[in-house]
């Protein structure tokens, strides 16, 4: 086991390094000069001023030197400094990360739990009305554009019914603390996480349903019936446990995507996460922030992957013991 973890850690470090280098190169190939943007905003287009800006930020150095500077700082956990926001990038990201993680993990759990439960029900009632209803609803949520669903949800639950806050992470300037603040955040969290969760739910419904039906046909299910086990025990212990394996694979892929998938929702709901941070950085050519966000989201994807692999080893002994 230790060997497995060690091996994976080395791989993850190498992949992360490669991603960082690639991102750095891509950003440098993209059109636009941060010094020009900054000079423009400062209202001074004097070539001397621009040259000074370049020298100050090391932008006049050869590309390879810039890359080396970035990577060597990155290795020590330093993601650089955002001159626009006058803050270290790592601080900016750490500030925003909890909100994003809260939103994506809630949405992830909602989609996974609802999806698997609905899939199991659909499989048990294969061919009946409830099967078609579940599949249709799931497909409907999947086919509706995410931002549209978000706007409609706001319109219905915030504007018309007034049940939920329309945007934000918590009630501004309310000075709530402790439990009250947590409940306030949870209240704000419901709409965005449910909308995002419902969107991703469809794939879980479909794969769980298909997988349950497939496992139901396998021989060991008949063995279980021959033992005289109750159908509910057979479904839970024998069928679901085996049917869940492809769901775990899919969930691992999704978990990584959710960080990126949250950008749109964060924008619609004015959720102060790294998705919005990235969007703002993109508009203002805040290279360091952009690079930092890319790297952190890559690291999250890799981390979710590692968790998936661990989960797989727990649920499938054939992998653990090979």
């Amino acid at each position, binding site marked *: 086991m230790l060997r497995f973890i060690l*091996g994976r850690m080395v791989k993850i470090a190498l992949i992360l390094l490669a991603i960082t280098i690639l991102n750095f190169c891509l950003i440098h190939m993209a059109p636009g000069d941060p010094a020009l943007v900054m000079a423009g905003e400062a209202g001074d287009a004097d070539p001397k001023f621009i040259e000074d800006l370049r020298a100050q930020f090391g932008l006049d150095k050869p590309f390879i030197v810039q890359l080396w500077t970035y990577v060597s700082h990155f290795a020590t956990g330093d993601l650089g400094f955002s001159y626009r926001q006058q803050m270290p990038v790592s601080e900016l990201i750490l500030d925003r990360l909890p909100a994003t993680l809260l939103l994506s993990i809630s949405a992830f759990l909602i989609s996974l739990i609802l999806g698997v439960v609905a899939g199991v029900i659909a499989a048990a009632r294969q061919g009946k009305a409830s099967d078609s209803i579940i599949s249709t609803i799931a497909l409907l949520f999947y086919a509706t554009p995410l931002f549209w669903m978000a706007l409609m949800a706001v319109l219905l639950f915030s504007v018309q019914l007034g049940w939920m806050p329309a945007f934000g992470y918590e009630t501004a300037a309310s000075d709530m603390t402790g439990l009250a603040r947590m409940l306030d955040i949870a209240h704000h969290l419901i709409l965005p996480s449910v909308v995002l969760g419902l969107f991703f739910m469809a794939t879980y419904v479909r794969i769980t349903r298909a997988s349950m039906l497939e496992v139901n046909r*396998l021989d060991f299910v008949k*063995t279980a019936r*021959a033992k005289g086990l109750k*159908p509910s025990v057979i479904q839970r212990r*024998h069928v679901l446990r*085996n049917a869940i394996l492809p769901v775990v694979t899919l969930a691992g892929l999704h978990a990584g995507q959710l960080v990126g998938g949250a950008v749109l929702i964060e924008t619609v709901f004015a959720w102060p996460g790294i998705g919005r941070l990235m969007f703002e950085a993109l508009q203002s050519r805040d290279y360091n922030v952009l690079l930092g966000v890319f790297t952190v989201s890559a690291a999250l994807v890799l981390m979710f992957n590692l968790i998936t692999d661990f989960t797989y080893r727990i649920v*499938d*002994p054939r992998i653990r*013991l090979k």
Partner: protein
Amino acid sequence: MTDPIVRIENLKIALPEGADRPYAVDTCSFDLFPGKILCVVGESGSGKSMSANALMGLLPEGVHVSDGRIRLGERDLVGLTDEEMRDLRGRRVAMIFQEPLSALNPLMRIEDQIAEVFEAHGLLKPAERKKRAVELLTEVGLPDPARAARAYPHQLSGGQRQRVVIAMALALEPEVLVADEPTTALDVTTQAQILELIRTLQVERNMAVMFITHDFGVVAEIADHVTVMQLGKIVEEGPAAKVLSNPQHPYTRKLIDAIPKLRAGRAAAPAREPLMEVKGVSKTYRSGGGLFRPVREVHAVKDINLTIGRGETIGIVGESGSGKSSFGRCLVRLQDTDEGQILLGDQDITKAQGKDLQELRAKVQMIFQDPYSSLNPRIRVGRTIADGPIAHGTPVAQAMAEADALLERVGLPGAGKRYPHEFSGGQRQRIGIARALALKPQVIVADEAVSALDVSIQAQVLELLDELKRELDLSLVFITHDLRVAAQICDRVMVMQKGECVEIGPGSQVFDNPSHPYTRSLIEAIPGKDWDAEAA
């Protein structure tokens, strides 16, 4: 005579509409007696498994008992509620299955799967259940039962898993054991052990056994009584000795005649000029070897030397894992060899590249075991057959015409426009043969080409292969685990064990006078060989 424990009377099992016939089992009656084994024999589709499933109350959805009675003691099982039937299953009637590989849940420890039987019927405390599991595993003869109990299914061999399934079935000391082809998927030596185990346990516990099989060799080995089924009807029944020695119904006779006899089927053909020469071929599989993992090596084929004459049929026999299939795949270069040469004329198949390899591939073709997965389900069979020649430059129209001619030759005229699912297993294997012949090869490697087929179909396909071989002067490398088949059609036989050739010689010599202990143990294990000797 004691009273039967199970009486099946005029059983009718209705199939859903649109099936090939209205009843899977049509007005069948038979009895199971304590301490006796009834073998129900028949080919696929005879209704033998359906009647077993009916007894267990495990008929597939859409299939139901439409008439008749299934009496267990005083009780009629037909019409019991699911809950009542569930209570009997495992406790009074238990079942073992054909595929030990898939009959166990891969994600659960063996002890938990056995403990479930007690749990299902609310017996014993959890700790006692596990203790009992180990005892049962000891009883079915698993080495190191305590460890096996903690294992997952994939850590056990096929034979060991079948013992686990048997242990599970015996847990609650049922009066009736239903065994659905329990040894079909096993190697011959393992099969002999499992048959022996079932025999012993059944006598010890005075159990009634309904043993489903397609193999008269197995019948000869263990049956007290035999029932022969054809298309849902019982065509013959009686004491095993009587049915085997003096079958009355033509269908029974046909089934028994179709079994290859365990004697060299013919004198070895006079040796002709060598066509293919195998020199010191070895193949090692390596797995693992990641950043922190050691490499695992399996020597699948070790230093095999063999000369195959023109027009000769060479049998390669051995148990699973003996390396016979790996060797076959090396011959057609479906996998690379590590060492040695395979010479066809002056060209080495193991080294050839590009154009040379393509030409060589046309000369050595393969027929696969599984007639279902070896044909692409989305491509019409004519095109499947023509694909090879087209790849070698034959114009499409001509290749398709040749494919039609080949299909006619293998007994399937006009089949080219149809898809694989429209054919039966035997027909598909004929298509496989036509495909192998399409490139006009000199050598055909047939890997377990008839293993998946019913015995009468098997006989027809073997006959076809033999005819074609003579007609086209082919050399045939026939890989099989079935020594009877090898004895019948091979000029020479090579016996493989753990990648090595332990014995090679003319069929008559290998079978009548085996020199290696492993060959002797294989022959010793063949079911019904004493019956064979009597018949001879």
